């Protein structure tokens, strides 16, 4: 409030001078968000005994030993979990982006029977809570004999109502009708038109769709938790959750859990930092019309 009252009385140039309070609040937020990450960096260097005895942020010397132990755990099961996660999130998000881009382009650039019905269904799908899906999805997948397979996690991850909704907005906003007409006049088929003209223009928007879906799948714990029984198919989240459960009786596993937690977030953190400029999320962009 002091900024408002003093700002009103004093000269204009003063309202851009640095505010200690504003900066301090931001730094406080940053520290709060970094503490657990800093902790896991330190904790992964401790031996099992040090974990519960030394000061929280006192580093140990066991990082490489811990990584070696984790890699040796049941013949490298952890790395298999990591690969599975990349498969579920990477392939799932790529397929999801393609399906969303096609549907979004179709909805944006064509008139056809059933268009508004389908789009309204998609909009309703954005608000459907996943809770109602988990059990029936499992039962249906089990019925067709796909429970406990890669497909049981991949297939439900591909459809993304929100991704389709975003892709439609991007296609409407970025692909000019004249360009579509010109390509058609040149004799391009609709498929060529989509791949060679629309996709490159929609690219940066689609990166956002991909990232959304990638994080969504990586984050979705309940789906693989329900679908998968054999631990060789687990993503790293379900795997580490199981390992923590066993840790209740074998505390030696805690070190593995912590080292695994660190290794599993490193790639995602790196990806985030590299792609930060694509995270410009306007949830309400099209909601005005909805």
């Amino acid at each position: 409030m002091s900024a408002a009252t003093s700002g009103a009385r004093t000269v204009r140039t003063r309202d851009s001078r640095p505010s200690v309070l504003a900066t301090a609040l931001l730094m406080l937020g940053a520290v709060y968000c970094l503490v657990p990450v800093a902790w896991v960096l330190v904790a992964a260097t401790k031996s099992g005994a040090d974990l519960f005895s030394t000061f929280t942020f006192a580093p140990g010397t066991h990082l490489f030993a811990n990584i070696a132990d984790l890699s040796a755990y049941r013949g490298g099961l952890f790395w298999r979990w990591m690969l599975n996660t990349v498969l579920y999130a990477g392939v799932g998000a790529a397929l999801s982006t393609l399906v969303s881009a096609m549907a979004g382009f179709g909805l944006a650039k064509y008139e056809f029977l059933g268009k508004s019905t389908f789009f309204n269904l998609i909009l309703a799908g954005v608000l459907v809570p996943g809770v109602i899906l988990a059990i029936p999805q499992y039962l249906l997948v089990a019925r067709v004999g796909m429970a406990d397979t890669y497909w049981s996690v991949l297939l439900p991850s591909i459809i993304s109502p929100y991704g389709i909704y975003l892709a439609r907005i991007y296609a409407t906003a970025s692909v000019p009708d004249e360009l579509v007409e010109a390509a058609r006049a040149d004799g391009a088929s609709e498929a060529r038109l989509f791949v060679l003209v629309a996709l490159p223009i929609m690219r940066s928007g689609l990166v956002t769709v991909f990232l959304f879906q990638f994080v969504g799948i990586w984050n979705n714990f309940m789906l693989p938790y329900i679908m998968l029984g054999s631990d060789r198919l687990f993503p790293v989240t379900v795997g580490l959750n199981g390992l923590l459960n066993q840790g209740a009786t074998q505390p030696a596993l805690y070190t593995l859990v912590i080292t695994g937690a660190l290794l599993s977030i490193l790639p995602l953190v790196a990806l985030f930092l590299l792609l930060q400029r694509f995270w410009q999320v306007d949830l309400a962009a099209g909601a005005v019309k909805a």
Partner: protein
Amino acid sequence: MSRSAPYGFLAPAMVLFTATLALPILYSLYLSLRGVQVQGLGLGPGARQEVWVGLSNYRQSLSDPAFVHSVVRVVGYGVLLVPTMLGLALLFALLLDSRRSRGGGFARTAIFLPYAVPAVIASLLWGFLYLPDVSPVTDVLHGLGLPAPQLLSSRLVLFAVANIALWGGVGFNMVVLYTSLRAIPTELYEAARLDGAGEVSIAVRIKVPIVLPSLVMTLIFSLIATVQVFAEPTTLRPLTNNISTTWTPLMAVYRDAFTRDDIYSASATSVVIAAVTLVFSFGVLRAVGRRAFAER
């Protein structure tokens, strides 16, 4: 252009939408009205038959004390979490947008970083930080000769779980709000600045009303996520005795379906949760949304 082209583009989405969204929802509704009738001693083939049971699964799930408790708990959790999370997200977004803060680039990255950490891993990290033998809080308080709080005790465990969700959610919502703040043309508040308005009054009188639609969307998505809280308490369970198997509504659904093998009442419960969530989100859209979106 061929008439079938648009259907070609939409076919994959339509097929997947039907198979993995529409069909399961209908199947869930169907199962919620079914039940198993045991004939005779319940032995031998055909002794257990699936029959229509009307609304009795709904009656059963709504009168299950464990489920009712979980609902009350999650309401408390939401009241605690959602306003705190969105309030902080808005505060940080305004601070980033303010000309008076410094270190915005660093703070933005740091606060957004937890979004890259899945809920299970976040719960692992915080779960260990809550353990008295590991927690820095304990070290510091003991150093001062003070008693340390048991963060996973029955009194505090709700806060402990809410803190994990807060940590994971503030950054994303901050980026959403910051994005819409950046979209405001600066001319809109240049005039106010010339009139001598300070940053705080510009924020409250001009910026917040403009980003209201984004705030409504973050509110709806936060509510949907809150009702379905599952990963955090499930991951913390091995570290404390104060999280039961029916601690949240979704955990109750999971127990009914997969521990008790009662997919019928589990379906009824999940239909109830989904219906309440939908009513909530549409209610928010209608109540706040009309006003918020009309201002654009």
